[in-house]
Structures are given as structure tokens and as C-alpha cells.
């Protein structure tokens, strides 16, 4: 088939204070008409920059194409004037971005934004453009498109906004659609729907797609061909089946190995560390058996936030973030809470150490009722439960050296004498496998994975019994994610730690947990031993959630027909709303399913 885009020996340089830096190094590939090419690689590998150079949108003065050329439809883009480029952008090449929350203009209705693109490139009058805008919104499955076209972006959910972005991108039937991580910021059910949508539109319109992602599972769902990039270079190229079934390059192999595949743990009783290619054989861990002795018992936990309004700032409504949640964490075991954003899983974690004050309920840690403690005793109790947060870039204080940050809890509690502090911190650095020479560094000098190791070291400093890991690996690249997860499991074996692992990633959860709880709209809809939940999900929401997870296998693709998820209702209710208690049925040993209504 004919080449639509061909990139030849492309070099892109970045100018920084330290000098010029090669971001893309001698890159060549082609995209044929109406095929999907996935460009995959970890953050900083130059994949987004390549996409921007194809749009001739590299930020001036910072990034520059130093040599090589980009042919689009047999025209060299570098020789076109800015006016000619404007005719191509949005018309023949269009792009969708990662962040649907900020890529639409908040001041115009979505109908205006879609029809504006049509009018600019197609010379239609206002009425006709509006009509085709509504048709487009219908094609991307916005419900009631003739009415929703009058909505402003803030009135739409994240998934719907991404659909509008796709409508805008496809408005002029472009020859190629560039999608830069379009689903990374979305929940897994919405991601599945958007991916299926892009696939269907590609079939219908015959547009080529250049799909940029870091997620091998998404690649398996989308790609015809795959280009694997590793710092600025192409390391491998091939059809999706070649890449997945017979990877050649070491890096591709390690990338595939690090991706947890949903379902591969089905026959295993205990969590297992991730495989890492390239490193020496992972240390053979003892099976992470844990104990059956309860460490933390949570009964009927309820957390509601007030919504203030009016002149007097009175509480006018309440956000029901957590509704009647009960679970138990055993010593040395991991309980995972999964669910989509807004389901209350993070609030559960924060309620346990009263970073958020729960409305009612009972939290019992090793015989001590945490919710009835006074502030002084609570401070003491906190040393038993520590947290690791999601964003490694905001969870460390940028102004203090790492030594001080890891030492902070020890100094706060005064448990360690000054003379032995240095040694103790050194041990903690060893524990999380960071060189001791890092102690005097500052967070901005570390990579994401290294920062997360520091966060874990800080959590370990007080010898806690329980660590709450709130999406602790979600922001990391897969290979780094695998290393951090392995570290956590190793610590669990060595120190007998319990984890409350809060995550939206079903495949990771399957890998690390002993028990799993699924949350929806503040309720725990299903909880039980991990093998039982994954093999035999009972609640309709759990079933849908598992169906939505992309599988890193190109033969298991999903079409739009398989996916039909209900939108999330609002958790905000007026003050008189008094939800019914949760009732559960035991379907297998220790496997409970919610029988009362949860809104799904």
C-alpha cells in the first residue's frame, strides 16, 4: 500500500542551558494509508516530540529539527510556508491530546468548537456547519447530540470531552489522525470505549492513525504495526503480531515482560513478583503467604464531605464519598481496593489515618480503636500506618534534601538518637536500593521511580505495621513500576508488612494482592480472596470492570458492541438523603457480594 507519511533520518535537538541534547536520533518509519501505527516507549523517549514535528508544531527556540525530512503525501513539510501548514493542520493532519480537561476552550459550547473547524476548512455557512457538527457528535456517540451541542465543556465528563476532541479531529476527514496518549488520563471503562470508538471510526473513514502510548496493552488493542522507541531511537518495528509473539530487541522483551497480563495469575495462590528481563534472575522470593491474623478491622466506615453554599456558608448538601464500607486486612497480606476515579477508594485510605475525618464507623488497628483517639494518641498511632502517595513529583518537599525527608518522621517522633540517625537513614536507603550518596540530593534530581523509592523509605522509617499505597505506582513507567512493585513485595516478605493497595489497574492488582475489594460510588460492591474475585466475579460492576481492562494480546480485541458502561451517577445528595446500609451475600468462602443497591 502507498505511504502516507514517511519520516527519513529525523533528528530533533533540544536546546537547554546545559547545551543541545538529541531528543530524536536518526528516526525513520512510514505510515501507510488507513493503517494504525502505534509508537510505544517510556516517558522521555521522544515519541510525543516526533508527533509534534509531524504537525510542524515544535515549540520554537526549544526544539528544532536538525536534519532529516518528513514527507506527508509526497510533500516535504519543511518546505511549506506557515499559511500552507495551517491549511494542512486540522484538515489533513489532526491531533488529539492526552488531557481532555484542558484541550477544549472553556468559553465556547462544544457545538461551536466543532463547527468552527468545519467552517474554517470547508467554507460551509454557519447553519450547515452546525448540522454537520451535530452529525459528528452523534458519530462519536455523544447522547442527544442536538441538545449536548449547546453544552459547555465543563458540563461534560472527561470521556465525553475526549469524544468531542475526536469529533473535532475528524471533522474534516483528515488523512491521518495523531493520537498522543488520548486515554492515559481516563478511567479504564472510558478508555475501553474511546479505543473502540477510534477503531470503528478508522474502519469507517479510512483515515490513518498514529497512536502514541506507553501502554503495551493499549498497543495490542489498537495497532496494525508498531514502532518501539527507546531514548530517541527506534529499536524495533514490526506488525503487531511480530512484536507481541516474537520480539527481537532486548528492550521490547523487557517492556513486554514488565506488563502484567490480566488472567495470568489465575492458577496461582499467592502474589508473585514481576518478571524483569535484563536484570539478573529476580531473587527467588519465598511465597508471600502472610498470616490469617487480622491487623486492621474496618466496620461500617462512612465518610461524607459537606458541600457549602449560600451567604452563610451553611452545609447545603453532602458528598457521600464512602458509604458503609467494612473490610479486614491480615498481618503480612495485601488488600487491594480497585475502582474508577471518584469511587471513594482514596478517601477510604485517608480516613483510616484520619487525614480525612470519617463521619462514622469503626477502625480497629491491632486492638486499638483509631477513630476514638485524641489528637495526641492519634499522632502516636499514625506511626503504625504510613502512606505512599501517587504523584512522585508532588509527594516530596522540593526544598529539602532527601536525608531530611526520610529522617522527618524519626525526628518528629524522636525515636532515634541523633548519633545513630545517619546510620538508620543509610539502612533505609539500602532497603529501597538507592545509593547512600543520594542522601544530600534534592527531589528534582531524581527520576519518578527513585522518588517513589524515597517515599517508601520515608514510610518505612517508623517500622509501621501497615502501609497504605495510594496509586503508588500509577504514575510510573512500566519497567519502573515493576521494580517498585517488586520492592514492595520484597519488603512484605522481609518485614511482614501489610499493604492496603489502592489502584485502578486490575492487572497490577491481580499481581500483588491476597484479597481484593471492588468499589463503586462509595460502596464496596464485592470483596474476597483475589483468585475468587478474578475467576468468578459476581457483581455486574466487577464483571464490566474486568471486561474493560485492555489485554496485552492482539488477538483479544474488544469492539464497541462488547462495551456498554453506564455513566457514573453523582455522589452528591441533599442533607435528608439517608442511604440504606450495605448488605452482603457470601457466594464462596470469604467472597462477599453486595446485594443492596449501589447505583450501578
Amino acid at each position, binding site marked *: 500500500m502507498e505511504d502516507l507519511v514517511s519520516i527519513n533520518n529525523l533528528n530533533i535537538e533540544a536546546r537547554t542551558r546545559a547545551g543541545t541534547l538529541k531528543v530524536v536520533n536518526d528516526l525513520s518509519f512510514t505510515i501507510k494509508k488507513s493503517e494504525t501505527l502505534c509508537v510505544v516507549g517510556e516517558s522521555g523517549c521522544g515519541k510525543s516530540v516526533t508527533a509534534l514535528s509531524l504537525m510542524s508544531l515544535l515549540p520554537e527556540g526549544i526544539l528544532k529539527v536538525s536534519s532529516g525530512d518528513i514527507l506527508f503525501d509526497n510533500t516535504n513539510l519543511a518546505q511549506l510556508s506557515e499559511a500552507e501548514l495551517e491549511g494542512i493542520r486540522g484538515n489533513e493532519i489532526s491531533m488529539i491530546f492526552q488531557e481532555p480537561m484542558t484541550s477544549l476552550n472553556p468559553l465556547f459550547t462544544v457545538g461551536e468548537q466543532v463547527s468552527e473547524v468545519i467552517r474554517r476548512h470547508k467554507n460551509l455557512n454557519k447553519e450547515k456547519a452546525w448540522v454537520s457538527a451535530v452529525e459528528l457528535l452523534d458519530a462519536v456517540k455523544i447522547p442527544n447530540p442536538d441538545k449536548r451541542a449547546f453544552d459547555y465543556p465543563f458540563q461534560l465528563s472527561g470521556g465525553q470531552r475526549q469524544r468531542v476532541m475526536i469529533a473535532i479531529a475528524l471533522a474534516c476527514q483528515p488523512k491521518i489522525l495523531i493520537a498522543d496518549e488520548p486515554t492515559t488520563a481516563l478511567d479504564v471503562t472510558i478508555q475501553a470505549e474511546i479505543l473502540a470508538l477510534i477503531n470503528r471510526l478508522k474502519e469507517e473513514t479510512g483515515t490513518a492513525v498514529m497512536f502514541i502510548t506507553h501502554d503495551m496493552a493499549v498497543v495490542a488493542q489498537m495497532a496494525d504495526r508498531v514502532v518501539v522507541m527507546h531514548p530517541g531511537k527506534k529499536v524495533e518495528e514490526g506488525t503487531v503480531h511480530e512484536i507481541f509473539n516474537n520480539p527481537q530487541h532486548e528492550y521490547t522483551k523487557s517492556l513486554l515482560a514488565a506488563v502484567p497480563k490480566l488472567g495470568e495469575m489465575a492458577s496461582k495462590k499467592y502474589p508473585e513478583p514481576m518478571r524483569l528481563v535484563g536484570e539478573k534472575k529476580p531473587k527467588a522470593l519465598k511465597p508471600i503467604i502472610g498470616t490469617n491474623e487480622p491487623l486492621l478491622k474496618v466496620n461500617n466506615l462512612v465518610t461524607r464531605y459537606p458541600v457549602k453554599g449560600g451567604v452563610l456558608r451553611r452545609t447545603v448538601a453532602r458528598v457521600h464519598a464512602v458509604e458503609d464500607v467494612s473490610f479486614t486486612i491480615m498481618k503480612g497480606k495485601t488488600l487491594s481496593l480497585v475502582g474508577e476515579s471518584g469511587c471513594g477508594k482514596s478517601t477510604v485510605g485517608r480516613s483510616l489515618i484520619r487525614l480525612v475525618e470519617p463521619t462514622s464507623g469503626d477502625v480497629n488497628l491491632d486492638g486499638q480503636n483509631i477513630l476514638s483517639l485524641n489528637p495526641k494518641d492519634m499522632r502516636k498511632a499514625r506511626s503504625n500506618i504510613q502512606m505512599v502517595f501517587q504523584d512522585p513529583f508532588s509527594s516530596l518537599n522540593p526544598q529539602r534534601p532527601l536525608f531530611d525527608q526520610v529522617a522527618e518522621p524519626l525526628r518528629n517522633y524522636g525515636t532515634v538518637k541523633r548519633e545513630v540517625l545517619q546510620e538508620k537513614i543509610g539502612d533505609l536507603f539500602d532497603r529501597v536500593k538507592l545509593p547512600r550518596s543520594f542522601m544530600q540530593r534534592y527531589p528534582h534530581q531524581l*527520576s519518578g521511580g527513585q522518588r517513589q523509592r524515597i517515599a517508601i523509605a520515608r514510610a518505612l522509617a517508623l517500622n509501621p505495621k501497615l502501609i497504605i499505597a495510594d496509586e503508588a505506582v500509577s504514575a510510573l513507567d512500566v519497567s519502573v513500576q515493576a521494580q517498585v512493585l517488586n520492592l514492595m513485595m520484597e519488603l512484605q516478605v522481609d518485614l511482614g508488612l501489610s499493604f492496603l493497595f489502592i489502584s485502578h489497574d486490575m492487572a497490577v492488582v491481580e499481581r500483588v494482592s491476597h484479597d481484593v475489594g471492588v468499589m463503586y460510588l462509595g460502596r464496596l460492591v464485592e470483596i474476597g480472596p483475589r483468585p475468587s474475585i478474578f475467576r468468578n466475579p459476581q457483581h455486574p460492576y466487577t464483571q464490566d470492570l474486568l471486561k474493560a481492562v485492555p489485554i496485552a494480546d492482539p488477538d483479544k480485541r474488544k469492539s464497541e458492541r462488547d462495551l456498554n458502561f453506564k455513566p457514573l451517577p453523582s455522589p452528591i445528595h441533599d442533607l435528608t438523603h439517608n442511604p440504606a446500609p450495605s448488605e452482603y451475600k457470601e457466594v464462596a468462602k470469604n467472597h462477599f457480594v453486595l446485594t443492596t443497591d449501589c447505583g450501578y
Partner: protein
Amino acid sequence: MLENEEIDEPTIKPVKEIFQTFFKSYSAVTGLFILIGIAVMGFIGPLFYPTDPFDMVWMPFSPPGADGFLLGTDYLGRDILSQIINGARVSIAIGFLAALVSCFIGVGIGSFAGFYGGWVEETLMRITEFFQVLPTLLFAMVIVALFGSSVLSITLAIGAVSWASVARITRSEFLRIKELDFVLASRSSGSNNMALIFRVILPNAAAPIIVQSALLVGAAITFEAGLAFLGLSDPNVISWGQVIGSNRVYILDATYTVTFPGIAIFITVLAISLVGDGLNDALNPKLRSR
């Protein structure tokens, strides 16, 4: 493929990096040197030019350059050069001290309002707004009139009327930073509220507060000049505003008597603005990498 080997750069302390950026900017360095020059002139200058600024040394209205007086004499025959040299001391001192006072009040009120929220914030911010809508010059005049026109009362008066902007900036930074995970992390590792406010959040909020305070120094100097122009200055010490104020009647006959102190104020405030700008660039991490 452990990611530890990636970084081999030497450890640079953030503070050092800020200094490096600051000293790379020509305008900021120029401003800093002018400011240091003026301060040196004010504090050491009288040793080399010992004429008393209050002494009537020659006949009134001697034009600049004539009779050995570089900048001429004023309506009482006092040496204007000596007045400018000695006035620098008071202007700079009042400028910095008043900015320090407003920084102190503003950071205190702003940080508590931002950190605690709720009724604490409501109360403190209403007070701040009260000071913001008050006609500042009038209010400062009332304070000086009540407590007498000494350097101390003038400094406190200026400080008391100009802290509102610092309070608002501090509060907004606190509102932003207190939501970041490292604050939660610090709280969950046992830090109490005072440690969170002063050891964790405030150092991270420092950049815009420092910039605002630097600009306040300039504002305070002009404010002092304004008060002195209206006659509300310490009669025992000379200041630039006072020189302008006392000569204002003769502005048409002897323009130079008000021009030279005016230029002195202008240059000082400009230098402070340049320094403030340089600080802004150096402290703002987004601009720093450019």
C-alpha cells in the same frame, strides 16, 4: 537496568542555583549594585563629606556647581548634596524596615488564614480586606499624627498599611501548597500544625513572598517620601521626601532643589524594581530553565 545510574550530575543546592540565575541577569545585578552604592553612600558617605545637612552653610538658592556646592543650596542655604547623602540612610532604612514589618504581619495572617481555612480564614481575610480598601495615605497620616512623627512611628505606620498584598499572596500560596501530597505525607509522618506551616509549607511559598516584599521596599520609600512631602517626617533626621517637601514652594524659582532628591528616589526605586524582577526570574522554576 536499574535506574540508579542515570544521574551523575553533582548535587546543586536549590539556593545556589537561585543565586546563579540571579547573577546571570544584567539588569538585576545592575540594580543590586546601585542599591548597594546608595546604601554605602548613606551609611559611610557622611565620613567623607562631613557637611551637616541641617547647617546653613551658604546663601540660599545657590545654583548647582556654583560656589563649590555641587548640587547647590536650598531655601535656607543648606547643602543639598549633603542632604541627599544623609537622606539615603533614612530612606533606605525606613524602606527595608517597613517592608519587613508588612512582611511579618502579612505572612503571619496569610499563612494562618490559608492553612486553617474556615472561620479563621474568613475573619483574617475580612480584616485584610479592611486594610486593603482603607485610604492608605490617610490612615498612615492618622497613625503618625497620633504617635508623633519619629522614624519608628513612620516605619510602623507604613508597615501597618501595606501588608495586605503580602497576606493575600501568602494565603493563595498556602491554599495551593497545602493540597500537595508532600504536606499530607509530612502530616502522616507525625508533623504538627506549626511544623507544617513554618517548616514545610512556608519555605515552598517563599518565592512570591520574597518578590512581593522586595517590591514593597520600593513602595515604602515612595510612601515615606509622600508622608514627608506632607510634612509628616521626623524633624530630627533628614530624608529625601522631606527635602522635596520643604522646597516645594520654590519649585518654579529653584527647580533643582526638588529635582535632585526626586532623581535620588527615582533611581533607588528603579534599582529595587530591577532586583525584584531578577528575584522573580531566579525564584520561579518555570522561568529558570530558559
